[in-house]
């Protein structure tokens, strides 16, 4: 028989930890699955194990306070399954997972997927070279291994994380050769009308200002309005080339950290075929959810950045909200109880969200990564370039799923995580249609690799 419980939570970031804690406090039987060996998600990665004495100051207070969320979760009665990969979710509330040895099925009355965000892939010419990484990857190496890039490092793109990582790397002693931002003066102008609303969450504004000031105080000049960023080298990165003020500039570097914001991780919501909508300001897909995170698949709720990017604090609040709705649906509290407990949380969620219209205008993916030049690799697994995609469209490919048959684009091990958004954008651009009309890959399980051995070890269910 497969295991049967009230609530399965997927992901141990702030949303998942909060959801599991609240649901178990209300008497639900809760299992939390997470791929990592310890709680925290990416934002609070290694929060229990980090070397606080030497890394605490570098990583900062916002990171360290994640310890409180993990602690509350550890004290809860939720059944925690670290190093566990969920590879299939079904609309009836069952899910398939593996501990790395044996695959198993679990049946839950409800599932809260708190699988958060991934960094937006930044397809530029040369981004497949060794030495080119996501900025978040460098941050993960600081958090988990107290490591920094060895040698001249360029940080390029836009968004709050870019400046945070630059500050952290500087404090940790990395050699920062250049900070390049794609943000232009007109982005600041476009953001100004949203500033009054953003004041409701003014802690973000003051933090942002502090980060920029720190960098300037250290003598860094942030090069703004950068375009045509590309990486060159023979197998490994040697130079970063970019354009600023119509001048082409070269910087020697052996590490290039790219960042242009984060996007919802839609692997689970796409695999169950939940409804998605196109969020135009940040040009990403997000599942359609109500205020409790419930998707078009009734048994499945999303908490946190997986439902749209609002950040770690809002994710924690959303975790509590999704849990309260689940507790209500499973009959432990009535609607009035839910609303009484949820009231302050909903107000805080709205307040935290009020910074987003400003951030959306200020930091958005640059046009050249949305529809990259022909020579750029889009699908890293199957090595399909933007030019290949345009050629296929000219030959009659109408959408991402047809493109698979032409090129295997999106059919490699990452299952479209790295190319999906770009493929839809490039096809939409080539066909002169809105992205909504072009759609996205149809995703099928297993959404993470599972070995034949793990499947063979499954008990009859």
């Amino acid at each position, binding site marked *: 028989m497969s295991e049967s419980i009230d609530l399965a939570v997927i992901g141990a970031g702030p949303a998942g930890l909060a959801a599991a804690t609240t649901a178990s406090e209300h008497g639900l039987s809760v299992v939390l699955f997470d791929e990592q060996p310890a709680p925290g998600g990416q934002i609070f990665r290694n929060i229990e194990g980090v070397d606080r004495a030497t890394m605490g100051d570098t990583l900062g207070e916002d990171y360290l306070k994640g310890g409180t969320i993990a602690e509350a979760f550890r004290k809860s009665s939720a059944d925690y399954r670290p190093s566990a990969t969920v590879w299939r979710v079904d609309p009836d509330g069952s899910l398939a997972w593996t501990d790395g040895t044996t695959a198993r099925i679990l049946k839950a009355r409800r599932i809260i997927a708190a699988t958060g965000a991934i960094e937006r892939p930044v397809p530029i010419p040369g981004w497949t070279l060794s030495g080119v990484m996501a900025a978040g990857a460098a941050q*993960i190496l600081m958090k988990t291994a107290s490591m920094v*890039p060895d040698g001249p490092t360029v940080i390029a793109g836009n968004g709050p994380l870019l400046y945070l990582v630059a500050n952290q790397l500087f404090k940790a002693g990395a050699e920062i050769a250049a900070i390049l931002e794609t943000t232009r003066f007109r982005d600041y102008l476009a953001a100004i009308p949203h500033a009054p609303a953003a004041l409701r969450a003014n802690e973000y504004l003051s933090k942002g200002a502090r980060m920029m000031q720190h960098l300037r105080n250290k003598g860094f000049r942030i090069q703004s309005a950068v375009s045509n960023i590309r990486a060159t080298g023979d197998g490994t990165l040697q130079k970063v080339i970019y354009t600023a003020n119509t001048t082409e500039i070269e910087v020697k570097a052996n590490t290039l950290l790219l960042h242009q914001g984060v996007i919802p991780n839609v692997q689970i919501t796409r695999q169950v075929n939940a409804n998605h909508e196109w969020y135009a300001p940040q040009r990403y897909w997000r599942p359609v959810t109500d205020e409790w995170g419930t998707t078009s698949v009734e048994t499945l709720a999303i908490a946190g950045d997986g439902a749209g990017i609002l950040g770690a604090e809002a994710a924690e609040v959303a975790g509590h909200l999704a849990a309260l709705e689940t507790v209500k649906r499973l009959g432990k509290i009535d609607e009035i109880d839910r609303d009484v407990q949820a009231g302050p949380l909903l107000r805080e969620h709205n307040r935290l969200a009020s910074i987003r219209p400003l951030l959306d205008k200020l930091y958005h993916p640059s046009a050249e990564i949305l529809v990259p030049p022909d020579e750029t690799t889009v699908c890293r697994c*199957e090595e399909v370039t933007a030019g290949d995609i345009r050629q296929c469209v000219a030959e009659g490919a109408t959408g991402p799923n047809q493109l698979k048959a032409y090129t295997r684009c999106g059919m490699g091990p990452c299952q479209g995580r790295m190319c999906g958004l770009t493929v839809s954008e490039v096809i939409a651009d080539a066909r002169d249609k809105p992205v909504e009309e072009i759609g996205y890959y149809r995703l099928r399980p297993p959404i993470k690799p599972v070995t034949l051995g793990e499947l063979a070890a499954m008990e009859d269910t």
Partner: protein
Amino acid sequence: MYRRITDPKGGMVAIHFEGQRLQVPANETVAAAILAATPGYTRTTVVSGDKRAPYCMMGTCFECSMEIDGVQNRQACMTTVADGMIVKRQMGKREMPE
């Protein structure tokens, strides 16, 4: 290539990577251990044989797919090192073992 900025606390383990013996902190991921040991690559691609190295470090990009203890397609950034672990670069496309 990456360097450690603190002295590792806690135990160390030895892993074998392409003929090298690496002494690494016991709680580190395979991908981190390799980034600190070599400026090189973790796999070659299935189509052109292009050399690739870890990009995301969070299980998304699959560029760190390696052969670990005889199992192919393991994500090195999602795998914690263990004493005696044998890590090989994953070269080109996969084949069924004989």
